[in-house]
Protein backbone atom coordinates (compact mmCIF):
# COMPACT_ATOMS: atom_id res chain seq x y z
CA UNK A 1 0.00 0.00 0.00
CA UNK A 2 2.89 2.31 0.66
CA UNK A 3 3.50 2.39 -3.09
CA UNK A 4 0.09 3.86 -3.68
CA UNK A 5 0.48 7.06 -1.77
CA UNK A 6 2.97 8.84 -4.01
CA UNK A 7 0.85 7.73 -6.92
CA UNK A 8 -2.29 9.34 -5.50
CA UNK A 9 -0.34 12.47 -4.70
CA UNK A 10 0.88 12.62 -8.24
CA UNK A 11 -2.68 12.59 -9.51
CA UNK A 12 -3.68 15.19 -7.02
CA UNK A 13 -0.90 17.42 -8.21
CA UNK A 14 -1.80 16.86 -11.78
CA UNK A 15 -5.39 17.73 -11.07
CA UNK A 16 -4.35 20.97 -9.49
CA UNK A 17 -4.79 20.07 -5.88
CA UNK A 18 -3.84 23.19 -3.92
CA UNK A 19 -0.06 23.16 -3.59
CA UNK A 20 -0.03 24.66 -0.17
CA UNK A 21 -1.71 21.62 1.19
CA UNK A 22 0.96 19.49 -0.33
CA UNK A 23 2.84 17.74 2.38
CA UNK A 24 5.24 14.96 2.83
CA UNK A 25 3.92 11.48 2.21
CA UNK A 26 3.21 10.98 5.83
CA UNK A 27 1.54 14.29 6.42
CA UNK A 28 -0.65 14.47 3.30
CA UNK A 29 -4.24 15.35 4.18
CA UNK A 30 -6.40 12.40 4.95
CA UNK A 31 -9.30 12.13 2.56
CA UNK A 32 -12.27 9.88 2.57
CA UNK A 33 -12.87 7.86 -0.59
CA UNK A 34 -15.87 9.98 -1.34
CA UNK A 35 -13.91 13.18 -0.91
CA UNK A 36 -11.24 11.96 -3.25
CA UNK A 37 -13.73 10.67 -5.79
CA UNK A 38 -15.54 13.95 -5.62
CA UNK A 39 -12.31 15.81 -6.34
CA UNK A 40 -11.53 13.52 -9.26
CA UNK A 41 -15.04 13.85 -10.57
CA UNK A 42 -14.95 17.62 -10.42
CA UNK A 43 -11.63 17.84 -12.23
CA UNK A 44 -12.27 15.19 -14.80
CA UNK A 45 -15.75 16.30 -15.79
CA UNK A 46 -14.68 19.91 -15.99
CA UNK A 47 -11.75 18.99 -18.22
CA UNK A 48 -13.64 16.84 -20.77
CA UNK A 49 -17.14 18.24 -21.16
CA UNK A 50 -17.02 17.95 -24.92
CA UNK A 51 -14.85 15.34 -26.59
CA UNK A 52 -14.94 13.31 -29.76
CA UNK A 53 -13.20 9.98 -29.68
CA UNK A 54 -12.76 7.33 -32.33
CA UNK A 55 -12.53 3.67 -31.47
CA UNK A 56 -13.93 0.21 -31.94
CA UNK A 57 -17.00 -0.89 -30.07
CA UNK A 58 -16.65 -3.91 -27.82
CA UNK A 59 -18.63 -5.45 -25.00
CA UNK A 60 -21.74 -3.91 -26.49
CA UNK A 61 -24.70 -4.52 -24.23
CA UNK A 62 -28.21 -3.18 -24.44
CA UNK A 63 -29.53 -3.01 -20.88
CA UNK A 64 -33.13 -3.80 -20.09
CA UNK A 65 -33.51 -0.11 -19.22
CA UNK A 66 -32.90 0.61 -22.89
CA UNK A 67 -29.54 2.25 -22.27
CA UNK A 68 -26.64 1.07 -24.37
CA UNK A 69 -23.41 0.19 -22.57
CA UNK A 70 -20.23 -0.50 -24.46
CA UNK A 71 -16.51 0.02 -24.52
CA UNK A 72 -14.46 1.93 -26.98
CA UNK A 73 -11.02 0.58 -27.60
CA UNK A 74 -7.99 0.83 -29.76
CA UNK A 75 -4.82 -1.25 -29.76
CA UNK A 76 -3.70 -0.11 -26.33
CA UNK A 77 -6.56 1.39 -24.40
CA UNK A 78 -10.16 1.01 -23.51
CA UNK A 79 -12.77 3.36 -22.14
CA UNK A 80 -16.25 2.64 -20.86
CA UNK A 81 -19.10 4.38 -22.60
CA UNK A 82 -22.83 4.63 -22.28
CA UNK A 83 -25.46 5.98 -24.62
CA UNK A 84 -28.78 6.69 -23.03
CA UNK A 85 -31.98 5.39 -24.47
CA UNK A 86 -33.20 8.80 -25.63
CA UNK A 87 -30.05 9.36 -27.73
CA UNK A 88 -29.97 5.78 -28.95
CA UNK A 89 -33.36 6.11 -30.57
CA UNK A 90 -32.06 8.82 -32.88
CA UNK A 91 -29.24 6.61 -34.11
CA UNK A 92 -29.38 5.57 -37.75
CA UNK A 93 -27.71 2.23 -37.18
CA UNK A 94 -27.45 -0.39 -34.46
CA UNK A 95 -23.97 -0.19 -32.93
CA UNK A 96 -22.39 -3.57 -32.49
CA UNK A 97 -19.08 -5.11 -31.50
CA UNK A 98 -16.25 -4.52 -33.91
CA UNK A 99 -17.74 -1.39 -35.38
CA UNK A 100 -15.45 1.60 -35.59
CA UNK A 101 -17.27 4.67 -34.44
CA UNK A 102 -16.78 8.28 -33.60
CA UNK A 103 -18.41 9.06 -30.30
CA UNK A 104 -19.10 12.55 -29.18
CA UNK A 105 -19.90 13.32 -25.56
CA UNK A 106 -18.61 14.12 -22.10
CA UNK A 107 -16.52 12.28 -19.54
CA UNK A 108 -18.36 11.40 -16.37
CA UNK A 109 -17.19 9.74 -13.19
CA UNK A 110 -19.31 7.02 -11.74
CA UNK A 111 -18.53 7.37 -8.08
CA UNK A 112 -20.15 4.17 -6.87
CA UNK A 113 -17.88 2.09 -9.13
CA UNK A 114 -14.86 4.31 -9.15
CA UNK A 115 -15.04 4.40 -12.90
CA UNK A 116 -15.01 7.09 -15.46
CA UNK A 117 -16.92 6.73 -18.67
CA UNK A 118 -17.92 8.56 -21.77
CA UNK A 119 -21.54 9.72 -21.84
CA UNK A 120 -22.18 9.56 -25.55
CA UNK A 121 -24.35 12.25 -27.07
CA UNK A 122 -23.95 11.19 -30.68
CA UNK A 123 -22.39 8.32 -32.52
CA UNK A 124 -21.51 7.77 -36.13
CA UNK A 125 -19.66 5.11 -37.99
CA UNK A 126 -16.05 6.06 -38.36
CA UNK A 127 -14.84 6.62 -41.85
CA UNK A 128 -18.27 5.99 -43.30
CA UNK A 129 -19.20 9.57 -43.80
CA UNK A 130 -17.89 9.73 -47.35
CA UNK A 131 -19.24 6.34 -48.37
CA UNK A 132 -22.67 7.11 -46.90
CA UNK A 133 -22.76 10.44 -48.68
CA UNK A 134 -21.81 8.72 -51.95
CA UNK A 135 -24.50 6.05 -51.43
CA UNK A 136 -27.12 8.65 -50.62
CA UNK A 137 -26.23 10.52 -53.79
CA UNK A 138 -26.40 7.34 -55.88
CA UNK A 139 -29.66 6.36 -54.23
CA UNK A 140 -31.15 9.72 -55.11
CA UNK A 141 -29.98 9.42 -58.71
CA UNK A 142 -31.30 5.86 -59.19
CA UNK A 143 -34.58 6.78 -57.50
CA UNK A 144 -34.98 9.73 -59.85
CA UNK A 145 -34.45 7.33 -62.76
CA UNK A 146 -37.31 5.19 -61.47
CA UNK A 147 -35.36 2.11 -60.46
CA UNK A 148 -36.97 2.04 -57.03
CA UNK A 149 -40.51 2.84 -58.12
CA UNK A 150 -43.19 0.92 -56.28
CA UNK A 151 -44.98 0.17 -59.57
CA UNK A 152 -41.97 -1.84 -60.68
CA UNK A 153 -42.33 -4.24 -57.77
CA UNK A 154 -43.53 -7.68 -58.76
CA UNK A 155 -45.53 -9.92 -56.49
CA UNK A 156 -43.65 -12.94 -55.26
CA UNK A 157 -45.18 -16.24 -56.34
CA UNK A 158 -46.99 -17.71 -53.40
CA UNK A 159 -45.21 -20.93 -53.93
CA UNK A 160 -41.76 -20.71 -55.46
CA UNK A 161 -41.01 -24.29 -56.46
CA UNK A 162 -37.44 -23.37 -57.30
CA UNK A 163 -35.34 -20.61 -55.84
CA UNK A 164 -32.15 -19.25 -57.34
CA UNK A 165 -29.61 -17.95 -54.85
CA UNK A 166 -27.03 -15.52 -56.13
CA UNK A 167 -24.29 -15.54 -53.51
CA UNK A 168 -20.94 -16.94 -52.60
CA UNK A 169 -21.07 -20.76 -52.41
CA UNK A 170 -18.74 -20.63 -49.45
CA UNK A 171 -20.22 -17.68 -47.59
CA UNK A 172 -22.24 -17.45 -44.42
CA UNK A 173 -25.39 -16.55 -46.34
CA UNK A 174 -25.75 -19.83 -48.23
CA UNK A 175 -24.97 -21.73 -45.06
CA UNK A 176 -27.70 -19.88 -43.16
CA UNK A 177 -30.20 -20.33 -45.98
CA UNK A 178 -29.61 -24.08 -46.34
CA UNK A 179 -29.79 -24.36 -42.57
CA UNK A 180 -33.20 -22.73 -42.42
CA UNK A 181 -34.56 -24.62 -45.41
CA UNK A 182 -33.30 -27.89 -43.96
CA UNK A 183 -34.79 -27.16 -40.57
CA UNK A 184 -38.10 -26.14 -42.10
CA UNK A 185 -38.07 -29.17 -44.38
CA UNK A 186 -39.13 -26.79 -47.06
CA UNK A 187 -38.84 -29.23 -49.98
CA UNK A 188 -38.03 -26.35 -52.26
CA UNK A 189 -35.50 -26.74 -55.03
CA UNK A 190 -32.52 -24.49 -54.68
CA UNK A 191 -30.11 -23.60 -57.41
CA UNK A 192 -27.05 -21.67 -56.42
CA UNK A 193 -25.60 -19.17 -58.86
CA UNK A 194 -22.16 -18.63 -57.43
CA UNK A 195 -20.76 -15.13 -57.42
CA UNK A 196 -18.20 -13.33 -55.32
CA UNK A 197 -19.94 -11.02 -52.88
CA UNK A 198 -17.19 -8.58 -52.08
CA UNK A 199 -14.40 -6.92 -53.93
CA UNK A 200 -14.25 -5.23 -57.27
CA UNK A 201 -15.38 -8.21 -59.36
CA UNK A 202 -18.43 -8.88 -57.17
CA UNK A 203 -20.90 -6.36 -58.57
CA UNK A 204 -20.56 -7.26 -62.28
CA UNK A 205 -20.64 -10.99 -61.42
CA UNK A 206 -23.79 -10.62 -59.33
CA UNK A 207 -25.45 -8.60 -62.09
CA UNK A 208 -24.56 -11.21 -64.71
CA UNK A 209 -25.88 -14.03 -62.55
CA UNK A 210 -29.21 -12.21 -62.24
CA UNK A 211 -29.33 -11.76 -66.02
CA UNK A 212 -28.39 -15.41 -66.51
CA UNK A 213 -31.09 -16.61 -64.15
CA UNK A 214 -33.62 -14.69 -66.25
CA UNK A 215 -32.17 -15.84 -69.54
CA UNK A 216 -32.30 -19.50 -68.52
CA UNK A 217 -35.61 -18.99 -66.69
CA UNK A 218 -33.98 -20.90 -63.92
CA UNK A 219 -36.28 -20.26 -60.94
CA UNK A 220 -39.48 -18.68 -59.65
CA UNK A 221 -37.64 -16.35 -57.32
CA UNK A 222 -34.08 -15.03 -57.09
CA UNK A 223 -32.50 -14.31 -53.73
CA UNK A 224 -29.54 -11.95 -53.96
CA UNK A 225 -27.69 -12.15 -50.67
CA UNK A 226 -24.62 -12.13 -48.55
CA UNK A 227 -23.86 -12.26 -44.85
CA UNK A 228 -22.93 -9.38 -42.61
CA UNK A 229 -19.81 -7.33 -43.11
CA UNK A 230 -18.45 -3.86 -43.07
CA UNK A 231 -20.07 -1.11 -45.03
CA UNK A 232 -17.33 -1.52 -47.63
CA UNK A 233 -17.96 -5.26 -47.82
CA UNK A 234 -21.60 -4.66 -48.67
CA UNK A 235 -20.83 -2.07 -51.33
CA UNK A 236 -21.13 -4.37 -54.38
CA UNK A 237 -24.84 -4.73 -53.62
CA UNK A 238 -25.18 -0.98 -53.92
CA UNK A 239 -23.44 -0.81 -57.28
CA UNK A 240 -25.51 0.63 -60.09
CA UNK A 241 -24.96 -2.43 -62.26
CA UNK A 242 -26.52 -4.67 -59.58
CA UNK A 243 -29.42 -2.28 -58.99
CA UNK A 244 -30.16 -2.17 -62.72
CA UNK A 245 -29.94 -5.96 -63.10
CA UNK A 246 -32.41 -6.41 -60.23
CA UNK A 247 -34.77 -3.81 -61.65
CA UNK A 248 -34.61 -5.49 -65.07
CA UNK A 249 -35.23 -8.98 -63.70
CA UNK A 250 -38.41 -10.59 -64.95
CA UNK A 251 -38.13 -13.10 -62.08
CA UNK A 252 -39.00 -11.50 -58.73
CA UNK A 253 -35.94 -10.70 -56.62
CA UNK A 254 -35.49 -10.79 -52.86
CA UNK A 255 -32.54 -8.77 -51.57
CA UNK A 256 -31.03 -9.98 -48.31
CA UNK A 257 -27.81 -8.22 -47.49
CA UNK A 258 -26.00 -8.40 -44.17
CA UNK A 259 -27.73 -8.08 -40.85
CA UNK A 260 -31.00 -6.39 -39.97
CA UNK A 261 -29.29 -3.03 -39.58
CA UNK A 262 -27.44 -3.21 -42.85
CA UNK A 263 -28.81 -2.02 -46.12
CA UNK A 264 -27.75 -1.80 -49.70
CA UNK A 265 -29.27 -0.17 -52.74
CA UNK A 266 -30.22 -3.68 -53.95
CA UNK A 267 -32.82 -3.62 -51.15
CA UNK A 268 -34.59 -0.69 -52.79
CA UNK A 269 -34.54 -2.18 -56.28
CA UNK A 270 -35.66 -5.65 -55.19
CA UNK A 271 -39.28 -6.72 -55.12
CA UNK A 272 -38.82 -7.61 -51.49
CA UNK A 273 -36.18 -6.85 -48.89
CA UNK A 274 -35.39 -9.52 -46.35
CA UNK A 275 -33.46 -8.31 -43.32
CA UNK A 276 -31.07 -11.28 -43.48
CA UNK A 277 -30.40 -14.28 -45.72
CA UNK A 278 -32.01 -16.47 -43.04
CA UNK A 279 -35.10 -14.30 -43.14
CA UNK A 280 -35.22 -14.68 -46.92
CA UNK A 281 -35.07 -18.45 -46.47
CA UNK A 282 -37.85 -18.27 -43.88
CA UNK A 283 -39.99 -16.34 -46.34
CA UNK A 284 -39.41 -18.93 -49.01
CA UNK A 285 -39.88 -21.90 -46.69
CA UNK A 286 -42.98 -20.44 -45.17
CA UNK A 287 -44.68 -20.27 -48.53
CA UNK A 288 -45.32 -24.00 -48.62
CA UNK A 289 -46.75 -24.09 -45.10
CA UNK A 290 -48.88 -21.03 -45.78
CA UNK A 291 -50.09 -22.62 -48.97
CA UNK A 292 -50.97 -25.90 -47.28
CA UNK A 293 -53.00 -23.92 -44.75
CA UNK A 294 -54.66 -22.05 -47.60
CA UNK A 295 -55.55 -25.31 -49.28
CA UNK A 296 -57.10 -26.45 -46.00
CA UNK A 297 -59.18 -23.31 -45.97
CA UNK A 298 -60.28 -23.65 -49.57
CA UNK A 299 -61.28 -27.23 -48.94
CA UNK A 300 -63.18 -26.23 -45.82
CA UNK A 301 -65.00 -23.49 -47.74
CA UNK A 302 -65.92 -25.87 -50.53
CA UNK A 303 -67.12 -28.53 -48.11
CA UNK A 304 -69.02 -26.30 -45.72
CA UNK A 305 -70.65 -24.27 -48.49
CA UNK A 306 -71.63 -27.42 -50.35
CA UNK A 307 -73.02 -28.95 -47.17
CA UNK A 308 -75.05 -25.86 -46.32
CA UNK A 309 -76.36 -25.73 -49.88
CA UNK A 310 -77.37 -29.38 -49.68
CA UNK A 311 -78.91 -28.84 -46.25
CA UNK A 312 -80.91 -25.94 -47.61
CA UNK A 313 -81.98 -28.05 -50.54
CA UNK A 314 -82.93 -30.90 -48.19
CA UNK A 315 -85.03 -28.51 -46.13
CA UNK A 316 -86.85 -27.31 -49.23
CA UNK A 317 -87.33 -30.90 -50.38
CA UNK A 318 -88.75 -31.93 -47.01
CA UNK A 319 -91.94 -30.17 -48.08
CA UNK A 320 -92.25 -32.87 -50.68
CA UNK A 321 -91.67 -35.93 -48.46
CA UNK A 322 -94.19 -38.75 -49.11
CA UNK A 323 -95.89 -38.29 -45.76
CA UNK A 324 -96.25 -34.57 -46.23
CA UNK A 325 -97.36 -34.91 -49.81
CA UNK A 326 -100.04 -37.39 -48.73
CA UNK A 327 -101.26 -35.14 -45.98
CA UNK A 328 -101.27 -32.16 -48.28
CA UNK A 329 -103.13 -34.12 -50.92
CA UNK A 330 -105.68 -35.17 -48.39
CA UNK A 331 -106.23 -31.62 -47.36
CA UNK A 332 -106.62 -30.62 -50.97
CA UNK A 333 -108.81 -33.58 -51.93
CA UNK A 334 -111.10 -33.56 -48.90
CA UNK A 335 -113.62 -31.06 -50.32
CA UNK A 336 -113.69 -32.99 -53.57
CA UNK A 337 -114.18 -36.27 -51.75
CA UNK A 338 -116.93 -34.66 -49.76
CA UNK A 339 -118.60 -33.35 -52.85
CA UNK A 340 -118.26 -36.71 -54.49
CA UNK A 341 -119.78 -38.43 -51.48
CA UNK A 342 -122.59 -35.90 -51.37
CA UNK A 343 -123.28 -36.27 -55.05
CA UNK A 344 -123.22 -40.04 -54.79
CA UNK A 345 -125.63 -40.02 -51.91
CA UNK A 346 -127.86 -37.54 -53.65
CA UNK A 347 -127.83 -39.66 -56.73
CA UNK A 348 -128.68 -42.84 -54.87
CA UNK A 349 -131.42 -41.09 -52.96
CA UNK A 350 -132.83 -39.58 -56.12
CA UNK A 351 -132.82 -42.92 -57.91
CA UNK A 352 -134.67 -44.52 -55.02
CA UNK A 353 -137.26 -41.75 -55.11
CA UNK A 354 -137.49 -42.03 -58.82
CA UNK A 355 -137.99 -45.77 -58.66
CA UNK A 356 -140.62 -45.37 -55.96
CA UNK A 357 -142.37 -42.81 -58.11
CA UNK A 358 -142.07 -45.10 -61.07
CA UNK A 359 -143.59 -47.98 -59.10
CA UNK A 360 -146.39 -45.72 -58.14
CA UNK A 361 -146.88 -44.53 -61.65
CA UNK A 362 -146.82 -48.08 -63.00
CA UNK A 363 -149.41 -49.19 -60.48
CA UNK A 364 -151.51 -46.18 -61.34
CA UNK A 365 -151.12 -46.82 -65.02
CA UNK A 366 -152.07 -50.47 -64.54
CA UNK A 367 -155.23 -49.56 -62.72
CA UNK A 368 -156.05 -46.93 -65.36
CA UNK A 369 -155.36 -49.39 -68.10
CA UNK A 370 -157.39 -52.01 -66.32
CA UNK A 371 -160.23 -49.58 -65.97
CA UNK A 372 -159.98 -48.70 -69.62
CA UNK A 373 -159.77 -52.34 -70.80
CA UNK A 374 -162.55 -53.36 -73.19
CA UNK A 375 -162.79 -56.60 -71.22
CA UNK A 376 -163.74 -54.54 -68.18
CA UNK A 377 -166.34 -52.74 -70.24
CA UNK A 378 -167.62 -56.01 -71.51
CA UNK A 379 -167.83 -57.30 -67.96
CA UNK A 380 -170.10 -54.42 -67.16
CA UNK A 381 -172.49 -55.82 -69.76
CA UNK A 382 -171.42 -54.07 -72.96
CA UNK A 383 -170.62 -56.03 -76.10
CA UNK A 384 -168.59 -55.39 -79.18
CA UNK A 385 -170.40 -55.64 -82.48
CA UNK A 386 -168.52 -56.09 -85.73
CA UNK A 387 -169.75 -56.36 -89.30
CA UNK A 388 -168.97 -59.67 -90.86
CA UNK A 389 -170.58 -59.13 -94.22
CA UNK A 390 -173.48 -60.95 -95.98
CA UNK A 391 -171.72 -63.48 -98.08
CA UNK A 392 -169.08 -64.52 -95.70
CA UNK A 393 -169.00 -67.53 -93.52
CA UNK A 394 -171.47 -67.30 -90.81
CA UNK A 395 -169.97 -69.34 -88.07
CA UNK A 396 -169.31 -67.47 -84.87
CA UNK A 397 -165.75 -68.77 -84.73
CA UNK A 398 -165.11 -67.67 -88.29
CA UNK A 399 -166.55 -64.29 -87.40
CA UNK A 400 -164.31 -64.04 -84.39
CA UNK A 401 -161.26 -64.95 -86.45
CA UNK A 402 -162.18 -62.30 -88.93
CA UNK A 403 -162.73 -59.82 -86.14
CA UNK A 404 -159.33 -60.59 -84.61
CA UNK A 405 -157.73 -60.14 -88.02
CA UNK A 406 -159.23 -56.68 -87.89
CA UNK A 407 -160.94 -57.23 -91.15
CA UNK A 408 -164.34 -56.20 -89.93
CA UNK A 409 -165.14 -52.84 -88.59
CA UNK A 410 -166.67 -52.27 -85.16
CA UNK A 411 -170.20 -51.11 -85.49
CA UNK A 412 -170.71 -47.78 -83.77
CA UNK A 413 -173.89 -46.74 -85.59
CA UNK A 414 -176.86 -48.45 -87.26
CA UNK A 415 -176.38 -46.35 -90.31
CA UNK A 416 -175.27 -48.46 -93.24
CA UNK A 417 -176.48 -51.70 -91.79
CA UNK A 418 -178.81 -53.77 -93.88
CA UNK A 419 -181.23 -56.49 -92.88
CA UNK A 420 -179.77 -59.94 -93.38
CA UNK A 421 -176.27 -58.72 -92.75
CA UNK A 422 -174.22 -60.84 -90.34
CA UNK A 423 -172.84 -59.30 -87.19
CA UNK A 424 -170.31 -60.80 -84.83
CA UNK A 425 -170.90 -60.00 -81.19
CA UNK A 426 -168.17 -60.33 -78.62
CA UNK A 427 -169.25 -60.64 -74.97
CA UNK A 428 -167.25 -60.57 -71.82
CA UNK A 429 -167.13 -64.24 -72.22
CA UNK A 430 -167.73 -65.90 -75.55
CA UNK A 431 -169.24 -64.59 -78.76
CA UNK A 432 -172.15 -65.03 -81.04
CA UNK A 433 -173.06 -64.59 -84.71
CA UNK A 434 -176.30 -62.70 -85.36
CA UNK A 435 -178.30 -61.60 -88.34
CA UNK A 436 -179.70 -58.14 -88.75
CA UNK A 437 -183.47 -58.29 -89.14
CA UNK A 438 -184.40 -54.59 -89.06
CA UNK A 439 -182.48 -51.37 -89.16
CA UNK A 440 -183.68 -48.28 -87.34
CA UNK A 441 -181.94 -45.09 -88.00
Amino acid at each position, binding site marked *: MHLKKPHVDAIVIAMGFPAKEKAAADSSPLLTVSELTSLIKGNLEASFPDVTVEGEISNAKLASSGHFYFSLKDENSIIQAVMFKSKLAALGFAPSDGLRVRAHGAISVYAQRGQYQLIVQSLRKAGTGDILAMLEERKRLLASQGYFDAERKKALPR*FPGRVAIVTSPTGAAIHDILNV*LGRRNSAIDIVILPAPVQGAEAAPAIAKRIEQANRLDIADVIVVCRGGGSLEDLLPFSETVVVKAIAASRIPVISAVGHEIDWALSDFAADLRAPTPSAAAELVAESREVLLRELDQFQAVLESTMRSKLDALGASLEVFSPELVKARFEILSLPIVNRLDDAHEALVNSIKGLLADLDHWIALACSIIETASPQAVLKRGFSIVRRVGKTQAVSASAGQAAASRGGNEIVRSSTGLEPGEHLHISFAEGSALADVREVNE
Partner: protein
Amino acid sequence: MKNFEQRLQRLEYLADRIKEPDLPIEEAMKVFEEGMTLSKGLRKELESLQGKVEMITNGPDDQGGPDMVPFQEVKE
Protein backbone atom coordinates in the same frame (compact mmCIF):
# COMPACT_ATOMS: atom_id res chain seq x y z
CA MET B 1 -51.82 -29.14 -67.15
CA LYS B 2 -51.73 -25.57 -66.02
CA ASN B 3 -48.97 -24.48 -63.71
CA PHE B 4 -49.24 -24.41 -59.96
CA GLU B 5 -50.10 -20.73 -59.67
CA GLN B 6 -52.81 -20.95 -62.32
CA ARG B 7 -54.41 -23.95 -60.67
CA LEU B 8 -54.22 -22.18 -57.31
CA GLN B 9 -55.96 -19.16 -58.79
CA ARG B 10 -58.63 -21.43 -60.27
CA LEU B 11 -59.15 -22.96 -56.83
CA GLU B 12 -59.49 -19.52 -55.29
CA TYR B 13 -62.04 -18.61 -57.92
CA LEU B 14 -64.00 -21.80 -57.28
CA ALA B 15 -63.99 -21.22 -53.52
CA ASP B 16 -65.51 -17.79 -54.18
CA ARG B 17 -67.92 -19.03 -56.79
CA ILE B 18 -69.45 -21.75 -54.62
CA LYS B 19 -70.41 -19.09 -52.09
CA GLU B 20 -72.71 -17.36 -54.57
CA PRO B 21 -76.17 -17.82 -53.13
CA ASP B 22 -77.99 -18.16 -56.44
CA LEU B 23 -75.64 -20.74 -57.89
CA PRO B 24 -77.76 -23.67 -59.09
CA ILE B 25 -77.09 -26.87 -57.19
CA GLU B 26 -75.88 -28.75 -60.29
CA GLU B 27 -73.40 -25.96 -60.91
CA ALA B 28 -72.36 -25.99 -57.25
CA MET B 29 -71.73 -29.72 -57.41
CA LYS B 30 -69.48 -29.23 -60.43
CA VAL B 31 -67.63 -26.40 -58.68
CA PHE B 32 -67.27 -28.52 -55.57
CA GLU B 33 -65.90 -31.51 -57.43
CA GLU B 34 -63.48 -29.50 -59.49
CA GLY B 35 -62.34 -27.57 -56.41
CA MET B 36 -61.76 -30.67 -54.33
CA THR B 37 -59.86 -32.36 -57.13
CA LEU B 38 -57.68 -29.28 -57.58
CA SER B 39 -57.08 -28.89 -53.87
CA LYS B 40 -56.09 -32.53 -53.41
CA GLY B 41 -53.84 -32.41 -56.44
CA LEU B 42 -52.08 -29.25 -55.28
CA ARG B 43 -51.67 -30.64 -51.79
CA LYS B 44 -50.23 -33.88 -53.11
CA GLU B 45 -47.82 -31.94 -55.26
CA LEU B 46 -46.72 -29.79 -52.35
CA GLU B 47 -46.28 -32.72 -50.02
CA SER B 48 -44.43 -34.89 -52.49
CA LEU B 49 -41.77 -32.27 -53.19
CA GLN B 50 -38.30 -33.39 -52.27
CA GLY B 51 -36.26 -30.24 -52.59
CA LYS B 52 -32.82 -30.61 -54.06
CA VAL B 53 -29.93 -28.22 -53.82
CA GLU B 54 -27.86 -27.73 -56.92
CA MET B 55 -25.29 -25.30 -58.12
CA ILE B 56 -25.01 -24.01 -61.63
CA THR B 57 -21.56 -24.55 -63.08
CA ASN B 58 -21.98 -22.36 -66.13
CA GLY B 59 -20.15 -19.11 -66.07
CA PRO B 60 -22.41 -16.07 -65.96
CA ASP B 61 -21.77 -15.40 -69.65
CA ASP B 62 -22.25 -18.96 -70.89
CA GLN B 63 -25.07 -19.44 -73.32
CA GLY B 64 -27.15 -22.58 -73.59
CA GLY B 65 -28.79 -24.69 -70.91
CA PRO B 66 -27.65 -24.59 -67.30
CA ASP B 67 -25.17 -27.22 -66.17
CA MET B 68 -25.96 -28.25 -62.65
CA VAL B 69 -24.12 -30.21 -59.99
CA PRO B 70 -25.51 -31.25 -56.63
CA PHE B 71 -24.36 -28.68 -54.12
CA GLN B 72 -22.07 -29.83 -51.39
CA GLU B 73 -21.53 -27.19 -48.78
CA VAL B 74 -17.95 -26.26 -48.13
CA LYS B 75 -17.31 -24.24 -45.04
CA GLU B 76 -14.83 -21.46 -45.30
